[in-house]
């Protein structure tokens, strides 16, 4: 991977991390409401996976979807406006944090139902195949969704029809407060791929380059008409399930995983390999922080939706 690509990955990871940190502040101020699910700690997956995709490819996201949106190229201003309940938000403040849609950027929405996106990804993948557009669907979900029937139905049909879809399981070990041992009787979700006769990969989800390479290969396979791949990315979220529940996880486990934070680790590597200097890194960080200042200001200044428009958008 060339230096420009690596720098782009770092930039994407900063955008996701700083966006999430900013939303935490705004949540505490009461400007963002609802149940905010942060992606901090998992940035390498969205960044690596979406960087391997083309603009016209589709992303089916989850309730923890900000990272996927940002990595796919969503506008931070409109995302922030959506989270702050403004008319200028992606979904005119009808969707909120869990449901950011932008077909222009290939974002087919976050989903408030765990495992709810997997069957929808069948449809966008079929659509790409049907129209022979070459579009691939990246379907994100987490290990909690692996216990849903939709996981089986979707992988089974996608394998049967060789649909151009890449299943990306973000295994962060905890489904809300349920530890993976309560939901997964085997070690790896990725191993289930063999039950559908498709390739299954189990990778370090905190290594952005590994994610990129693995997803890139899966996308190529899908585009060539060879069907789906299941990729399990081992990772961890640094914060509780959402902003409104306490952290019930063992704190030594949290500390251990924070040491594997994908961002400092990638920074260190880029510095060691002289891909980037500290000054350049600082410049990117500053640029991203400025973008977030602008996004916040845009959202703060944007009007709230007019109550009279509440029915708009229901029917086509």
């Amino acid at each position, binding site marked *: 991977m060339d230096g420009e690509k690596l720098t782009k990955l770092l930039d994407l990871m900063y955008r996701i991390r700083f966006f999430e940190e900013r939303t935490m502040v705004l949540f505490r101020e009461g400007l963002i409401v609802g149940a905010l699910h942060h992606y901090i700690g998992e940035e390498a997956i969205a960044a690596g996976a979406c960087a391997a995709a083309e603009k016209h490819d589709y992303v089916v996201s989850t309730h923890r979807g900000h990272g996927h949106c940002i990595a796919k190229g969503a506008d931070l201003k409109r995302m922030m406006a959506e989270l702050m309940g403004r008319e200028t938000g992606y979904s005119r403040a009808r969707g909120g944090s869990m449901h950011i849609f932008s077909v222009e950027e290939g974002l087919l929405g976050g989903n408030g139902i765990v495992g709810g996106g997997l*069957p929808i990804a069948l449809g*966008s993948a079929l659509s790409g195949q049907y129209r022979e557009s070459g579009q691939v669907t990246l379907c994100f979900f987490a290990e909690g969704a692996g216990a849903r029937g939709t996981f089986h139905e979707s992988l089974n049909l996608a394998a049967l029809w060789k649909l151009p879809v890449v299943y990306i399981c973000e295994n962060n070990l905890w489904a809300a407060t349920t530890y993976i041992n309560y939901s997964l009787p085997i070690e790896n979700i990725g191993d289930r791929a063999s039950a559908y006769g498709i390739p299954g990969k189990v990778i370090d989800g905190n290594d952005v380059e590994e994610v990129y390479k693995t997803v890139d290969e899966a996308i190529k396979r899908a585009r060539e008409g060879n069907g789906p791949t299941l990729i399990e990315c081992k990772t961890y979220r640094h914060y509780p399930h959402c902003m409104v529940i306490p952290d019930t996880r063992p704190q030594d486990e949290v500390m251990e995983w924070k040491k594997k934070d994908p961002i400092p680790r990638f920074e260190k590597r880029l510095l060691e390999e002289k891909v980037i200097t500290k000054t350049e890194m600082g410049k990117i960080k500053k640029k991203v922080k400025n973008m977030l200042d602008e996004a916040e200001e845009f959202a703060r200044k944007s009007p709230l939706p007019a109550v009279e428009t509440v029915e708009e958008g229901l029917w086509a």
Partner: protein
Amino acid sequence: MRELTYLGALNEALREEMERDENVFLIGEDIGSFGGVFGVEKGLWEKFGEKRVRQTPISEDAIVGTAVGAAMTGLRPVAEIMYIDFITCCMDQVVNQAAKLRYMSGGKIKMPLVIRAQGGSGTAEAAQHSQSLEAWFVHTPGLKVVMPATVYDAKGLLKTAIRDDNPVIFLEHRMLYNIKDNVPEGEWTVPFGKAEVKHEGKDITIVATSLMVHKALEAAKELADSISIEVIDPRTLVPLDIDTILKSVKKTSKLLVVHEAPTIAGVGAEIVRQVVENAFDYLDGAPRVLGGRSIPMPYAPILEKACTPQKEGIVKLIKEMM
């Protein structure tokens, strides 16, 4: 004019719409070479091939999910749920996804999909194959709900459903599949939100849906010498043409709603609410609803019949109301 069955009408609607628009495709169980368990898709697989007529495993979530994702990205899927009872296996995709994604996207995406299913009782298939679940969908914002009762409406409404940019639940009744009618050649559509007066009268208004339209018409015929009965078929429950119903009630002063689904919290209750709110002063006596019993459908035909409105019961209730 020519004779056509309700089943044949549905088949024609699918064929014509698939010919008209290559983005229309079918997805469901047993719809390939077999042509669907009731034969609605007969000949379509041979004509359009596997790309357009997609037979799936028994995977309702996958069927509706595929339809949702495909609709969002430019196709016009028509999904078949073999029995409406099986929609319970994919209610997330119907209620949380298909019905809501357009609104949650701020109106950015379109959801042009049709979910067809047949329901109702009459074939002694008992509780898990005999339900009338329309009220669930009427109660879910974001879904259009269609219940054709005649051959003409079956074809015209299905074509309208396929061309609609919103999710449509299209509920057929399997006891109607073999009814025959004289219909025109060629194509026609029936608009949504337009009830039809199936029989004019002046003494009482009966609003009936699906199979019950026919039972209400039989009752009207039987009582024709003594009572003049107006039978209205809303045809689409969402959108509901309350104006036609109100106009009739203002003329007759009496309202009876007949549907096969359980009376409790059903569509009849909703129609009565709207009539009471908008035409209370015109009513001569309490409006009534004759629906199914609140009981899982029993197997024995004699019990099954006892759980749903029959002509005799309609006639009896009309006489009581006069």
